[in-house]
């Protein structure tokens, strides 16, 4: 019907297609970068939040109990440029310097202060943006607003030793790159309606303010409503709580909750209970509450400024209700009206849910989740450390000012210890232990070392999200892919195993919001007609057409026309009058305005009246560089939607799906995948788990790590010698720069069975290809040595080898240069010394001349290379450096170049991993009629069960790409079509099926079937046999049990485990079991007294057996048993259990 009433010219007009809509993406990523969420969050901390923290009431002033006139007031705070003070000179530092020198990339925090010194008031003001007093150093996030790298172009970055493709967003602490993972949490200050274990419906709110975190529940028991909170020992009937808050009239309470008959009926029992308890007035209610207050030894409200003496228990109860229960709802001068309204809304929502179970909230719904980023986490820590610093200052002021006579005037600035902040932040980031005392928060593993195995692994880590959920719990809900995660989180990129579904990754376009000012929004909402609660009586709160307006979880008021209101609000956002990340959405008769941080959102093209606002002209201007993505945002052509607001929208995937109700248009569908899944060509043709496997494997693929990879000194680095660009690319590959830092090679594969060494996913490799450099890799390993200084002013020294040592190739010293450090380019074998260090014999007592001690005062303490026997490596690089603490370090990089061998692991980009099964000569390989010999042969059995059709299309695309001389596009939900590819193939004389007629290389005859053959991008994975192969005949044993050691690193034995043992038992090979489990393991000859049954001993000289208990020699027998068994007996004896062996024959 609609089409009849529309403008007739529009019906015939072709649907406008935005061909280069994709161009928005590079534009978006150009202004945003790949890890904007981290950087924005950190910038917000450094520029705004940090100011809020020091201006918070509890933090702003340091006072002193003993001198009422004394104060120290923080007036401003600045975070400076990354620098370090060395020898009293402040120097700017670069990230690369920090990595190499094991320093922390940090900037000084300076404050402006006003304080009393004696009788005068002193102010210290900022000069040129640097504050008056340094209070510590904060580790800086790379590419944040204070980082030296921001705003630099590729050349400038290269000059700083930095890779232009490196995304930043991580920290460098003590030379280690650390990422603060994104933490996923249930949103704060929001009402969640859930069903408890007993099947009862309840509402819970986790309130979070700067001072306090608390959880408030409203529960239903036997049809009655109760408030449950930690501070109360017992559940309190909700009516009593409302009465305690001053809502004495039952009628008013019911009106507030909802006077509709259905609601009133359900509230009956609750009202009755209150009646039965004999609580009618506020005073009575408070007394009731006071009786239920959990008695805590130290007073809960032991806050500065609040005096505890003379407070009645009723006062205490009132304070708890005001400040602890639902702490985020403000209560000013004990006016509880807001809080009453909030509680009644909670009750109303429970009632709603009781009447209509669909109203129960889904905890896994992503709109109920908030992501905590580096900035927020550091803010928590910073505030904690800052409070500690202030408490420290106060204690010192107390101590000094309480003394009557002082020699010098007390200057509080001299008491500021920078370590409190610096070490607090540094330790937390380097250990990953987040301890915030005031929230009783103790989290482990918040930070992780940035994995630099491949470029993708580093990038993938920056988008990773961890959930607070316990990994051990076997729940499926939080692990499952939620429909609301569409477009926000990558559906493919999650690990397998215990943390499956709990660790997630952001999609390509996802942004995470930071906090936005609430106050202007609140005023705006009122200006747009939101009636504040104070204007309304209880009966006016719920009108059928009107709606509650909630902002960040707290009730603003009521609006009569919610649709018009939200529409107006959105208009203002599109006009740029309010922040672009503020979201407005309506649901179940409420309008929710969110401006809090941690919401995930993504940009979409706005559609009005069935037409995208973004037109081809706009895109042309973008291409010409006249506009940027931000211009579109400002002009309201594109906007960010969060998960909740998406639910109020009707989003079209493609232009031709746009109709009159459509509100938004997707920019590009493939952006719903993350960076790791974006590497996969044609992922939409693959079985979904295969894409997940590739996401995990892409991180293990060897390739180029970064442009500065040869200047890095990482403990372990795997590099491919000849990495290539994939022939079948995706748009994501171009966007993230994978085509410049590839991790694989285009191998011509033939899908056929050959030689039989290709079963179970093994691949057959062409030796000539390996000879020519296919799959060749370099493994670099760092060994560091420290030259220590000791307390008696002596220090380690490094001495050159004696001349005769160097000439002898077999000497352990042959590699050393004159300076006592391994020569670069030399071949190093296990046992060779690479740093010839000597340590002073005495490192404690004062020495006469610590810098010129005789040789006899040193003992040799050389560092020798420990690698697998029989394999040599080459010294690649030696770095002599000093940390900012003056610690002298020698880092030696050792290199090994490896060619693929049988057992090395390879994988295509479709989760199809396999090890090399055999390496055959080129002449034995099949060849096509065009003379092409494949580089590797893959068994066709890999396809039917895996269903990786994408790989087949990649092969076709690659083959066509070779013929047409261009890179083919395999972008998800798009890319070159199979028809187009086949057209190219047929035009160049190939079969459209991609199959070629091959000749057998051994017999020379043609093969009976044509073989699917073409190039596929193959990754070499870091798992190589050389690092894993292990066997032993004899070797070391564990001291305690005398059993063989475990593991390759300790040259351990190969375990005959339970299952193997079961087989032998079943087979009846008893002698073999005895041999494996005892004789070849920990056989021990024990002496057992036949009289008492306890263990005796054998005299080591006379060789006579004896029992100490029975004092006998004659009745002691010798028998063989596992040493572990003897150990068990002795350990049992030590706990007063006497195991006795009774021998039938001795």
């Amino acid at each position, binding site marked *: 019907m609609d089409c009849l009433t529309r403008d007739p010219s529009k019906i015939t007009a072709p649907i406008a297609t935005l061909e280069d809509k994709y161009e928005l993406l590079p534009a978006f990523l150009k202004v945003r970068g790949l890890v904007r969420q981290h950087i924005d969050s950190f910038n917000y901390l450094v520029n705004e939040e940090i100011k809020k923290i020091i201006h918070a009431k509890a933090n702003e002033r340091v006072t002193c109990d003993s001198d009422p006139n004394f104060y120290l007031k923080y007036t401003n705070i600045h975070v400076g440029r990354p620098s370090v003070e060395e020898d009293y000179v402040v120097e700017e530092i670069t990230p690369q310097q920090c990595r190499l020198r094991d320093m922390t990339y940090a900037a000084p925090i300076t404050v402006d202060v006003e304080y009393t010194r004696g009788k005068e008031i002193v102010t210290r003001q900022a000069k040129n943006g640097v504050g008056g007093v340094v209070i510590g150093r904060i580790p800086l996030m790379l590419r944040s607003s204070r980082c030296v790298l921001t705003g630099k172009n590729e050349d400038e970055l290269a000059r700083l030793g930095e890779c232009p493709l490196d995304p930043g967003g991580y920290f460098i602490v003590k030379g280690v790159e650390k990422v603060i993972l994104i933490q996923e949490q249930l949103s704060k200050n929001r009402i969640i309606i859930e069903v408890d274990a007993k099947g009862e419906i309840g509402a819970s709110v986790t309130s979070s303010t700067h001072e306090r975190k608390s959880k408030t529940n409203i529960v239903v028991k036997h049809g009655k409503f109760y408030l449950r909170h930690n501070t109360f020992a017992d559940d309190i009937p909700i009516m009593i709580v409302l009465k305690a808050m001053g809502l004495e009239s039952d009628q008013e309470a019911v009106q507030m909750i909802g006077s509709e008959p259905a609601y009133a009926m359900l509230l009956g029992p609750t009202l009755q209970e209150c009646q039965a308890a004999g609580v009618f007035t506020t005073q009575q209610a408070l007394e009731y509450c006071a009786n239920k207050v959990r008695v805590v030894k130290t007073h809960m409200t032991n806050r500065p400024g609040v005096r505890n003496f003379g407070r009645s228990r009723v006062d205490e109860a009132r304070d708890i209700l005001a400040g602890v229960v639902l702490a985020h709802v403000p209560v000013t001068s004990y006016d509880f009206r807001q809080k009453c309204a909030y509680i009644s809304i909670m009750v109303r929502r429970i009632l709603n849910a009781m009447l209509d179970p669909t109203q129960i909230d889904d905890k896994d719904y992503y709109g109920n989740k908030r992501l905590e980023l580096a900035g927020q986490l550091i803010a928590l820590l910073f505030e904690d450390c800052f409070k500690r610093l202030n408490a420290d200052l106060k204690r010192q002021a107390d101590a000094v000012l309480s003394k009557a006579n002082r020699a010098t005037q007390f200057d509080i600035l001299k008491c500021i210890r920078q370590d409190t902040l610096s070490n607090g932040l540094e330790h937390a980031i380097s250990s990953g232990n987040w301890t915030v005392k005031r929230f009783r928060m103790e989290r482990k593993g918040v930070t992780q070392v940035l994995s630099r195995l491949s470029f993708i692994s580093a990038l993938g880590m920056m988008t990773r999200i961890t959930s607070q959920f316990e990994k051990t719990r076997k729940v499926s809900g939080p692990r499952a892919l939620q429909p609301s995660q569409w477009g926000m989180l990558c559906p493919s990129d999650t690990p397998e195993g215990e943390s499956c579904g709990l660790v997630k990754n952001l999609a390509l376009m996802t942004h995470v919001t930071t906090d936005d000012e609430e106050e202007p929004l609140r005023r705006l909402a009122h200006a747009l007609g939101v009636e504040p609660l104070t204007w309304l009586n209880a009966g006016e709160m719920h009108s059928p057409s009107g709606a509650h307006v909630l902002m960040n979880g707290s009730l603003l008021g009521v609006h009569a026309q919610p649709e018009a209101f939200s529409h107006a609000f959105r208009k203002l956002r599109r006009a740029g009058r309010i922040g672009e990340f503020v979201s407005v959405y309506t649901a179940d008769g409420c309008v929710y305005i969110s401006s809090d941080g941690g919401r995930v959102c993504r940009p979409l093209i706005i559609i009005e009246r069935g037409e995208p606002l973004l037109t081809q002209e706009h895109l042309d201007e973008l291409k010409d560089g006249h506009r940027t993505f931000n211009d579109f945002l400002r002009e309201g052509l594109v906007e960010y939607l969060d998960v909740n607001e998406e639910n109020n929208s009707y989003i079209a995937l493609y232009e031709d799906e746009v109709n009159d109700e459509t509100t938004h248009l997707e920019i590009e569908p493939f952006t719903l995948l993350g960076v790791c899944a974006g590497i996969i060509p044609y992922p939409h043709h693959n079985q979904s788990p295969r894409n997940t496997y590739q996401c995990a494997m892409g991180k293990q693929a060897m390739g180029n790590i970064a442009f500065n990879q040869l200047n890095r000194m990482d403990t372990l680095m795997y590099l491919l010698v000849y990495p290539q660009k994939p022939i079948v690319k995706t748009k994501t590959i171009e966007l993230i720069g994978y085509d410049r830092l590839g991790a694989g090679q285009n191998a011509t594969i033939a899908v056929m069975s050959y030689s039989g060494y290709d079963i179970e996913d093994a691949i057959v490799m062409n030796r000539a290809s390996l000879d020519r450099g296919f799959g060749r890799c370099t493994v670099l390993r760092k060994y560091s040595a420290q030259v220590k200084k000791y307390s008696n002013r002596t220090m380690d020294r490094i001495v050159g080898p004696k001349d005769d040592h160097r000439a002898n190739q077999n000497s352990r010293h042959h590699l050393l240069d004159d300076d006592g450090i391994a020569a670069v380019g030399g071949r190093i074998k296990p046992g060779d010394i690479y740093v010839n260090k000597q340590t002073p014999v005495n490192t404690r007592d004062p020495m006469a001349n610590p810098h010129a001690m005789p040789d006899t005062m040193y003992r040799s303490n050389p560092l020798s290379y420990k690698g697998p026997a029989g394999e040599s490596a080459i010294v690649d690089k030696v770095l002599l450096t000093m940390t900012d603490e003056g610690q002298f370090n020698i880092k030696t990089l050792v290199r090994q170049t490896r060619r693929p061998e049988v057992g090395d692991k390879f994988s295509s980009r479709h989760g199809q991993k396999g090890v090399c099964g055999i390496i055959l000569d*080129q002449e034995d390989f099949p060849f096509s009629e*065009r003379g092409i010999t494949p580089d590797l042969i893959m068994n066709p059995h890999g396809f039917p069960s895996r269903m990786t059709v994408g790989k087949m299309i990649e092969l076709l695309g690659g083959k066509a790409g070779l013929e047409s001389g261009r890179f083919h596009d395999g972008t998800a939900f798009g890319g070159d079509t199979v028809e187009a590819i086949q057209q190219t193939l047929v035009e160049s004389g190939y079969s459209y099926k991609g199959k070629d007629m091959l000749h057998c290389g051994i017999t020379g005859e043609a093969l009976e079937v044509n073989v699917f053959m073409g190039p596929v991008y193959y990754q070499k994975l870091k798992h190589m046999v050389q690092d894993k192969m292990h066997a032993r005949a004899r070797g070391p044993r564990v001291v305690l049990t005398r059993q063989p050691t475990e593991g390759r690193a300790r040259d351990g034995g190969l375990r005959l485990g339970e299952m193997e043992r079961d087989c032998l038992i079943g087979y009846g090979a008893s002698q073999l079991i005895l041999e494996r489990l005892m004789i070849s393991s920990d056989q021990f000859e024990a002496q057992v007294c036949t009289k008492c049954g306890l263990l005796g001993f054998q005299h080591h000289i006379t060789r006579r057996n004896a029992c100490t208990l029975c004092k006998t020699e004659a009745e002691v027998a010798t028998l063989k048993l596992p040493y572990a068994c003897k150990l068990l007996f002795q350990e049992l004896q030590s706990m007063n259990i006497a195991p006795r062996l009774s021998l039938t024959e001795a």
Partner: protein
Amino acid sequence: MLERLEEQRHYVRAGAEHNANVNEVAYGGAYASVGKDFAFSAERFRETFALTLTTSDEERCVFELEGCSPAFANAFRRIILSEVPTMAIEKVFVVNNTSVVADEVFAHRLGLVPIKADPAMFEYRGEGDAANETNTIVLKMHVRCHKERNPDGTLGEVVNRSVYSNALTWCPEGSQLPEENGAKYSDFKRSQKEVVGDQELGCVHDDILLVKLAPGQEVELECHCVKGIGQEHAKWSPVGTCWYKMVPEITILEPITGADADEFMKKCANFSETHKCYACEGKGDKKTVKVVESRGCDFCVERVRELTGEPGWADKIAVRKRKDHFIFTIETIGQMAPGTIFKEAVKILASKAQNVLSTL
């Protein structure tokens, strides 16, 4: 009956999905039941064997082998790939290498550079043999990248940013590295010029990029080339690749007329102006397809083969490939002419045969 056997014996039928009769029947008595004896006889071989050169230049040659079994052609292919000796860099003595390329990677790259030298003039160098003028070619390279200094003292262009294979120069007098541990790196009795005559040894190509340098970086090294075969390492293989294919024949089994002729022409013939493998005669229903070029070209053979897979076409046309007629291609890497390589291969095959005979 005989016709079918004949086809089986001589042709591979290249179907849409399946290649039939790929195997060669080597057993002479295989057709004894029909009274035929196809046992190998040298006379018959001499009679039927033919080698026709199609195209040939310095780097590539295509010729046809007729009247031999695939095993025979394959023997040549295998020998050429892996057993015809050439010279290649085997040892690299790095004096100085400040480039970003690691020594062993650089050495690997150098190894793959084709060396212009006649392997027949050299001997294999056994383990423990000293490097002498008859078993080793010494090449040296010393390149430094720097900014040129102009006459007025200012810095000018950067030179030697890229190092190409022409930087390798021949040292006919042997190694020029100083003695180490009392031993020289080579033991040349006379100048290598006397061994090779007036030939100039070096790299085949001057423009193979070996390494890129930044100003201040330097590479100084010496390479020792020895004789070897492709079986040991692909760098000694005299060819990039070498292969053969069977000669295809497009046969019309039943006359293709009328609409079929149109379809055939549309699918298999009309893709290019220059394509003249088929022609049409007559008009309307009497239109008949005629094969002009029974071998077809690379493009149409594939199209016809695909067409045989479509319903109704299998009985009308067939793509068959001759099992005793091959198009053999040798693509060299430049140090030896393809003809020489083939002759070498024949010699090696002959000596192998001799070997078998002598041990029988």
